[in-house]
């Protein structure tokens, strides 16, 4: 079943086409990878999906319904949560308060929200840090807090924006495990990642984009062999 679909996403910043004609369909329960060199428009696609930036043209469908004109907070309530590449913790609040604030997306009383928050904190392995202020956490834990917070809104689709960037190899392994576990819970995931180990092991399908345009789509193996992808990342062979 197709749960999520974008059609011909276009975003212009002035005369610059940041995203130009990106279409993809995502199956329920899938982990879908989005790759591309720096500045190719990956994060912009996320910002278009949750309407942080308005679309120039195109269509975003969730559960067969257009969401392109909905406000960012409405989209979260529908069940699409995201993390930020440049983490945005609620700095002076504790981990528990951070996650509780987002749990209010689904429940109304403090008790229920805290219960849900603690569940998610436990699930994401942040229990030892729950009383710490978010601003004091190292980057690895802040990235994890982003995921925890997004999970507390009980999303159907989770958009992960480079949640493994800046982590140590051991933390990366843990993050991979966590993402797989979230997926096993039935959450569909779209993931942006530069670390090939991550994207190649977890995604079922990958879309590669460059200069805001799709250049290749397919399974991780297909993408790894695709000459256009290799060119986008490493440059053309005869230029070397």
């Amino acid at each position, binding site marked *: 079943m197709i749960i999520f679909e974008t059609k011909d996403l276009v975003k212009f910043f002035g005369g610059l086409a940041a995203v130009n004609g990106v279409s993809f369909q995502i199956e329920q329960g899938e982990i879908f990878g989005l790759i591309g060199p720096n500045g190719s428009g990956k994060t912009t696609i996320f910002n278009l999906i*949750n309407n*942080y930036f308005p679309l120039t043209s195109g269509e975003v469908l969730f559960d067969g319904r257009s969401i392109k004109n909905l*406000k*960012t*907070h409405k989209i*979260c*309530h529908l069940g699409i*949560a*995201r993390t*930020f590449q440049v983490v*945005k*913790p*609620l*700095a*002076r*609040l504790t981990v528990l*308060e951070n996650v*509780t*604030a*987002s749990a*209010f*997306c689904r429940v*109304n*009383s*403090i008790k229920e*929200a805290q219960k849900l928050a603690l569940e998610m904190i436990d699930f994401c392995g942040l229990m030892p840090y729950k009383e710490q202020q978010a601003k004091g956490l190292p980057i690895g834990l802040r990235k994890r807090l982003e995921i925890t*917070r*997004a999970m507390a*809104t009980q999303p159907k689709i989770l958009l992960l924006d480079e949640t493994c960037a800046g982590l140590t190899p051991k933390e990366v392994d843990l993050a991979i495990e966590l993402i797989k576990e979230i997926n096993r819970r039935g959450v569909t995931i779209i993931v942006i990642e530069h670390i090939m180990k991550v994207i190649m092991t977890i995604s079922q399908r990958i879309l590669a984009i460059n200069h805001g345009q799709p250049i290749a789509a397919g399974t991780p193996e297909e993408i790894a062999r695709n000459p256009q992808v290799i060119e986008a990342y490493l440059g053309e062979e005869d230029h070397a």
Partner: protein
Amino acid sequence: MKSSLGLLKALVVLMIAGILPLFIKQDYYIHLLILVLMWVIIGSCWNLISGYTGQVSFGQAAFFGVGAYTAGIMFTKLELSPWWGLVLGGWTAMVLALIIGYLCFRLRGPYFALATLAAGEILRLIANNWVDFTEGMVGILIMQTFSSKLPYYYMVLGLAACCLGVISLVMNSKLGYYFVSIREDQDAAESLGINTALYKNLSLLISSFFTGTAGAFYLNYMGFIDPSVVFSLHDISIQAILVGIIGGVATIWGPAIGALIMVGIQELFRTAIFGLAPKWVSQGHAMAFGILVVLTILFMSNGVVGDWSKIKRLFIRKSPEAAS
């Protein structure tokens, strides 16, 4: 557990405030207490929108003045008792809040701060010049209902208790989490499903309601208002900020402590340290506030309540026998 302890603390404070007039007989000191309690309300309201929600208001005087003038104009034009202002003043202030919020809260950046600053000044000029409606610079004079100060004291005590009660209830609910989230990071808040425009408006509505009610109380208590008093930029708007900063931004008790300190210092200077200092000292209160703010920001940026543990340590170090 934590909240029940807070409730106990609040009840004790309320009880002490309730029986204080048994020990303090002089009208002068009751008057000062009434002023303190009024500033508790105004400061707490500023703290809600600016300290907790992070939308810095430079124009609490706009809400205060609108509340006061609602009571005054109902008296002069409709010949109603100015006490009706206590019921309606908060609502008219909320109407003003809706307009400002509607215009500013979909934007980011300093627009809200600037708009509130402007709103206070615009309203002051309107009240000055629309003589038919507001009596202009002449102001509005009413006969006070009570000659004793005690009824006013208990009234403003009740108002302040209500105001603090509502704010602490709000801050211990979903609303409170949302307000603080908006302060910490508006983009993150929005992506977590928080309707930031709506909740900023709600915060301002609550803040304006009690500020407007305090304005209406002010007319009833003082018996006189004019535009330069109730729409004053430095005597109301800025002082509301000072009360918040000195007491402790984003703490429940901060503005209460701040109000006590500010009214105390103001009175100290107004009377030129009870007549002990030369007369010119009374001109220096603005400068004293300035110095106080600089010192607060330099040495205890979280205010008296926010940095209470720091202050305690300071005193304990100075007198080790007190610690043991």
